[in-house]
């Protein structure tokens, strides 16, 4: 019998199976919106061709004695019509053993990933490759570029490697403790609910505002989230003045020059502390900019990664049985995890549309899955002159997106919003 392809989980992925349960998993969704309706049969053929190029996606999660590992799935993943709320946990009944899904709905091709497989950059490479292959099968002359991988070439070692193990890390440990953080008062929805508000914003207008403040677009958006949360906190009758903190994932690929298709990102957590006094928006921009300038350097990020990687190297941890590790990790995550952040902003950045598909792909969309804590998370991706900012929340209130988008409108930036709440109207 042929030995199945298997590999260890990368450092970032080790957390996710331990904290996943039947009602919650760390997921994200990437969508390509086309100009024409999607043909499911052609999409299935495109998926069959694409999945071979991504051996680290076509896997299932298996439990070993001490650690989880990923193993090749012999089955065929089928595309499905999109229904219900996105980013729901995987179930063996619906999804088989796969850890990602492909949906079609009208003009949209959507892929949902369990974070154990990859991060947003890896997911986007998969979606782009799938979309290009689909358009090729539809008879269009589209080439595999702008992040789409050529399916005629075999996967490289770099793409399948655990990047956390292949970089030189300093022998240091940094303090990871985070102070209690303010959460906007909210009414949690029942599990398996994910409200989406997607806003389309002209990139040039937003960039101009960011440049006026001498900050990058990610810093500007982070400052906007902090400012909006700060305004919500000011109106909070309970008068809690805990710090406001936004978790911002950082893509490490460009920093270390590694093009892995697996997880390779870290986090920085810019914050403001309203107990110290009042903040203006300009001040928040400066705080975020200075924080990022200090923490988004290779040295600081390496130190953070080294701390995470060193945990799994302790002999006691390595020898602890898997169920014990799960128990400890999940209990630690329940007490900390998302609870230490007011919100999350994941910005993929500007992504190019493959050559020949400029008039065939309308936009890309990025969505974070159901947050663990009752908060509203943001994800954004820009293509062409459109920045698509998506808010995903498992709470009833819309305070954060309302304040943030109204602020943009007041600044003179036009905002168009869509949502998945039409049925409630």
């Amino acid at each position, binding site marked *: 019998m042929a030995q199945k392809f298997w590999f260890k989980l990368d450092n970032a992925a080790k957390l996710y199976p331990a904290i996943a349960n039947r009602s919650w998993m760390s997921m994200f969704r990437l969508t390509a919106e086309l100009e024409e309706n999607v043909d499911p049969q052609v999409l299935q053929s495109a998926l069959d061709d694409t999945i071979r190029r991504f051996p680290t996606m076509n896997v299932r999660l298996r439990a070993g004695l001490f650690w989880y590992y990923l193993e090749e799935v012999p089955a065929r993943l089928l595309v499905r019509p999109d229904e219900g709320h996105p980013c729901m946990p995987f179930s063996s009944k619906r999804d088989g053993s796969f850890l990602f899904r492909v949906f079609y709905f009208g003009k949209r091709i959507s892929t949902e990933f369990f974070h154990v497989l990859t991060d947003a950059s890896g997911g986007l490479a998969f979606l782009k490759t799938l979309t290009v292959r689909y358009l090729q099968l539809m008879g269009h002359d589209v080439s595999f570029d702008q992040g789409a991988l050529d399916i005629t070439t075999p996967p490289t070692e770099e793409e399948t490697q655990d990047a956390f193990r292949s970089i030189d890390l300093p022998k240091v440990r940094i303090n990871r403790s985070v102070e209690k953080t303010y959460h906007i008062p909210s009414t949690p929805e029942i599990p398996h609910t994910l409200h989406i508000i997607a806003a389309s914003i002209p990139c040039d207008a937003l960039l101009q505002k960011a440049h006026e403040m001498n900050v990058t677009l990610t810093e500007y958006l982070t400052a906007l989230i902090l400012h909006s949360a700060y305004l919500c906190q000011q109106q909070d009758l309970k008068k809690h003045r805990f710090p406001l903190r936004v978790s911002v994932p950082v893509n490490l690929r460009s920093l270390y020059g590694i093009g892995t298709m697996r997880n390779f990102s870290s986090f920085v957590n810019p914050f403001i502390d309203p107990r110290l006094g009042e903040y203006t928006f300009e001040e928040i921009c400066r705080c975020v900019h200075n924080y990022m300038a200090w923490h988004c350097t290779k040295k600081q990020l390496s130190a953070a990664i080294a701390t995470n990687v060193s945990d799994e190297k302790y002999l006691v941890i390595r020898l602890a049985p898997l169920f014990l590790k799960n128990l400890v990790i999940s209990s630690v995550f329940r007490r900390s995890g998302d609870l230490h952040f007011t919100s999350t902003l994941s910005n993929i950045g500007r992504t190019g549309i493959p050559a020949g598909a400029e008039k065939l792909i309308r936009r890309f969309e990025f969505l974070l899955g159901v947050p663990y804590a009752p908060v509203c998370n943001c994800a954004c991706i820009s293509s062409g002159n459109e920045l698509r900012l998506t808010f995903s929340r498992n709470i009833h209130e819309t305070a954060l997106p309302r304040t943030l*988008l109204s602020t943009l409108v007041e600044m003179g930036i036009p*905002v168009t919003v869509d949502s998945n709440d039409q049925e409630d109207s």
Partner: protein
Amino acid sequence: MAYCVHCGVKLGLNEKQCPLCHTVSIDPHEERPADSAPLYPTHTPEQLLTRSKRYFLILFGILLLVPALLCLLVDLLIGGAVTWSIYAFTALVLLYIAIAVPIWVDHHKTYFSLITGYVCLMLYLKMVECVSDSGQWFFPIVLPGVTLLILLTLVITHLYRRQILGKFTLLGAILILIAIVCVAVDLLLSLYTGGHMLVWSPFVFAPCLFISLLIFFINGNRTIREEIRRRTHF
């Protein structure tokens, strides 16, 4: 495309109301393109939680039904008639209803729990009155007394959850409400036993009223409030 008059954002083609503030915005002159399809699925599949709820309620029902039926069976086999087992059987059935209904309801769980518990308790006590043949005590004493208590609990819960009043004012209001309910219950008991006097409630009413008036006075007087804050650092 319509704009939200409240938030100023432009609404997507499929939005009938602003997703941010839920203000209905309609552009009567809007011409929808023929191929305008919704961006997201509008059909929500059956939620896992609903399934979990259903399984839990079925399992819980079976767990309660077994002892309930066992009681009936033992009673019938030993006594030849349903006598004492009716109390156990009804209690278990009403307990199931009191727990199952609030679990099934998604919103306002606290209020539903209180009201369902109240209704079930009333039904049980009425059944006890009918079966035990111990005289007429349900309508004159139990129904108004327990109704007053549940109303008190509902009002306090509502005031606390809605944060209509400040902490001190809420404490004062609760004390006054407790004092009033105590007087009402005392009156009910007196009427039931044939008396026409308040027996114990004045001893509760007077201190409650005094403390709540004191709270309102301190709360309304900035100088005293500041003095207390200065001395206690609260």
